[in-house]
């Protein structure tokens, strides 16, 4: 289990990560989402032991990560713009990583490299961006680590490969102790694969919750009420994140369970009422809007 407690990191005057606390459990796919500059990559680099937090602690299996050789053997980090030593082939990379990751599974690597139609004898510098990403994912999975940190890993992968990688992750989770932590902007991709979401904004954590739980606790209501005063009362009673009007139709994004919300709305005798589940993208927009991050404020 990864425990992040009051973790802060500043680069000069820029507070990249600010008092972030969250837990990343085992056997789940953790999605780290957030606005641009929210601190996702920084948090991932702290978790990978590349940089050390200014305050707080980052524990993996109750041990600090930074400069901890044994603990660092438990994860594999795939950065957004990964470096691969010059003139290395995929085979060279496996030999290299075998020295660091005792659980490296060569047989699985041979199998996957064939499945992904990659040439292990070809220099990686001649690979396309997508091919490099595929190789890194394969290497990360074959490293046999408990955790895999992926920073924008789905970027550059074609839809088929995205599916393949998702399937690979699912298969690994089924077969062994494996927890991918994926930082991404591509919420559609994460929505399909993630069990748990951590939402970062301006260096701080806005929420960290199971995706299903998150969806269970946030809804979109479309209703038509007979009276303006009822509308105002309903907004006061509910934990409203966003309010919109389309003619007489009232659109609300509300925190709460479906039952709770429906009870409140029905009490106001609406002419029409419908409750809709939110996509991850809509949840992201709603939550960050509450935190003051919306397009209209940018212009």
């Amino acid at each position, binding site marked *: 289990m990864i425990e992040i407690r009051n973790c802060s990191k500043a*680069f000069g005057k820029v507070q990249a990560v600010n008092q972030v606390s969250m837990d990343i459990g085992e056997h789940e796919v953790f999605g780290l989402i957030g606005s641009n500059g929210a601190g996702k990559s920084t948090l991932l*680099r702290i978790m*990978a*032991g*590349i*940089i*050390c937090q200014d305050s707080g602690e980052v524990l993996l299996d109750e041990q600090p990560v930074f*400069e901890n*050789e*044994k*603990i*660092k*053997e438990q994860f594999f*980090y795939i*950065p957004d*713009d*990964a*470096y*691969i*030593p*010059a*003139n*290395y082939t995929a085979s*060279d990379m496996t*030999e*290299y990583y*075998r*020295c*660091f*990751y*005792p659980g490296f599974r060569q047989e699985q690597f041979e199998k996957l490299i064939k499945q992904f139609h990659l040439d292990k004898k070809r220099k990686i510098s001649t690979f396309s961006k997508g091919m490099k990403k595929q190789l890194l994912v394969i290497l990360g999975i074959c490293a046999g680590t408990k955790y895999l940190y992926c920073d924008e890993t789905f970027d550059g992968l074609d839809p088929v490969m995205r599916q393949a990688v998702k399937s690979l992750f699912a298969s690994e989770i089924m077969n062994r102790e494996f927890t991918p932590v994926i930082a991404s902007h591509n919420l559609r991709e994460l929505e399909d694969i993630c069990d748990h979401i951590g939402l970062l904004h301006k260096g701080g954590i806005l929420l960290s919750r199971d995706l299903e739980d998150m969806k269970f606790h946030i809804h979109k209501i479309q209703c038509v009420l007979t009276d303006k005063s009822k509308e105002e009362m309903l907004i006061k009673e509910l934990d409203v994140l966003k309010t919109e009007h389309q003619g007489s139709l009232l659109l609300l994004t509300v925190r709460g369970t479906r039952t709770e919300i429906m009870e409140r709305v029905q009490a106001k005798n609406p002419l029409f009422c419908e409750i809709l589940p939110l996509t991850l993208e809509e949840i992201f927009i709603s939550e960050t809007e509450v935190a003051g991050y919306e397009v209209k404020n940018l212009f």
Partner: protein
Amino acid sequence: MKSKIYSSEYIKNSSKGQRWIPAFAMIAFLLAFPVAELILMGKWNERSYTQSQLAYLYSSLWSSDFLTMGAIVAAVTAFLAAVSGFWYLYSPRKVDFYHSLPVRRSALFLHRVLLAAIYYLIPYIIMEFVAVCIGAARGYYSLSIMKKALILLVIHLLMYLLVYFSTVLVIACTGTMLMGALAWAGLFIYSIVLAVMLQISGHLFFDTWYEGSYGILAAVRDLGSPLMVIVSFIDKYSSGNYGKQLMILILVLLVMAVLSWMAFCRRRSENTGKALVYTWMEPVLSALITIPSGLGIGLIFYMIPEDSSKTAWWIFGMILGTILVHGILEVIYEMDFHRFFRRKVQLMIFGGFVAICALTMKMDLLGYDSYFPAYDNLQGVVVNVCNLSYTEQLCNVEKKENGIYKIRYTATSDNSSGLLDQPVMKSKALYNSLKDIKLQNEKEKRSGRRMYVRYINKQGFSVCRSYSVSSAQAQNLMEALYDEQTWKEDRYSFFQLDKQYLKEVTGIFCDGDIHSLFEKNAEKRQALVEALGKDILENGGQTVKDQPCAMLMFDYTGIPSEGYMDEGGMNVPAVQEGENVSTSVLVYPSYKRTLAILEETGYPLSMDELPVEYIDVYYFSSEAAGEDDEAFSDIESTSDLEETENGYKVRYDKKEQLEALKKCIRPSQLVNGWTIWNADATMEVVLEGQESTGEDSGLYMTFAGEIPDFIRADAKAAHVTEWEVND
């Protein structure tokens, strides 16, 4: 538990892409050792050296030539290995890659050092072994050579690691290539530039500045940069007395190793891209660069103008230099031209330091020029007067128990070495003479001849000064020195040379010619040597008040002397056959024993013995001469001045004129160095029965004494402006 990164598999994997380094080292060491050895041996074969000379040369090859060539290759390889191993620190992508791996930074560091050592050692050992084999094939194999090769391997490894760790330190402390390159250059040449700047400042601001390096200045230069530590070691190694330098080399290496290790392990990955990874270094580095640069640029402006405006230009240069260098550093730190005037308070503080340093030098606030030790606090003084008595050519000779001589040429006008091995003296007369010179230097600035003094305090530390000396002061000093037995014994120690090596004695007498003396009488020659030796030691300072009456030159050949040869891997003294020594000594009128022998030769020992027919004096006029000429005579000229191309010629043939002139002229070799007249005049002496040549082949003499009034009057009439004792 043994770390996985020391496994041969990992070393093999991680060296991929870096194998060009050992390949480079292999080629470079091939050229530095076997190829250079073969070329040199080929050269030796072309000459007819004896077997012992060849052995000596081969031994020197291992203690000198290989040391220098190997050091150059080791330094270049170390630089390349360090850059190749730690270059990744300048790239955030690479930093993420390497620092996310499950390995501690310290282990990563040690692994890279190990790899660098392998890159270096394998080519080195192979090529050194080949060099030993080539020597052995030519008959030079010995255990001492093997030992020497082993010592060389260790020494080169130390030098390699010093350059390696220094370069790693620079890379670990900097975040960009530009800053890395600047910092590397700074680390390796800073102390040299600083020492040069201090030397120039000393010359410009202190009248008694001593140019030689010693004390703090030498320490700054020799210890302030890894490069100079290596160069100093190489300088000392061939002499065999390198223990102290080796300790310094090891110490500096250890410091660099620890600092580079700390800098690497504590380096924050996120600081890649910043000019300096450790931001606390910024003001330190700024101070170390800005203050000397401000002073240095000020000095450049100070040296350009010749007139009184130089002080104003100096101040302008310092202000400009301080602002410019400080601003450039801030721009480099921030990579932003708008930050030129960032940290204005810091700039003001540095400006204050520059002003304090400048004032310290200009006003001599530390009392450099006014330094003079109290007599009671003085252990002794060492004096280099080669500039004052340059007519004598001498060397120090020390006779060893086995009949071998140790010959040193240290008493030269080279002020840096001239104060090292000279005898330490202490006498009231010498002290007073030096005090008088020092006080005179304080009173007036004077150019011309200089002498060098090393004061040794009772606490054991040395202070060196250089003084300009007038003729009278020089004479007083020489008188005091000629009263010092130890000084004379050291100065004239060549008298210890055995008579069997004395091959020729020649002399210059008042007729200005060189004569060979007692060519067929070795006994007489030796008697002359012994007489002169005794005369010098027995006669005190009064001797040098007179002008010399002859100069004797002694040529010794085939002297067995100490050279340096390998013995058990160490440089030890070895006998060199056939050393030649030539000396020349002035003979003064008080040297009665010597003069008694010289009288037998019949050559003129005084000017009175010279049958002079007439003397033509050539006065060289200055074009600017006129009524404003400096008056040095109240008497009007009565001579006939014959106009020449460069001035005037006057012939003196009257008896009283010749007698008066004989008292103040002599051949230039027979004049005490400190009493030469600096006159725009020369003279040709024509002896009875001879004709004036008017050319260089004539007998030309120089003024050396009280000048008669009629000469002064004629000089004035001829518009001669320079007419004074050379001070």
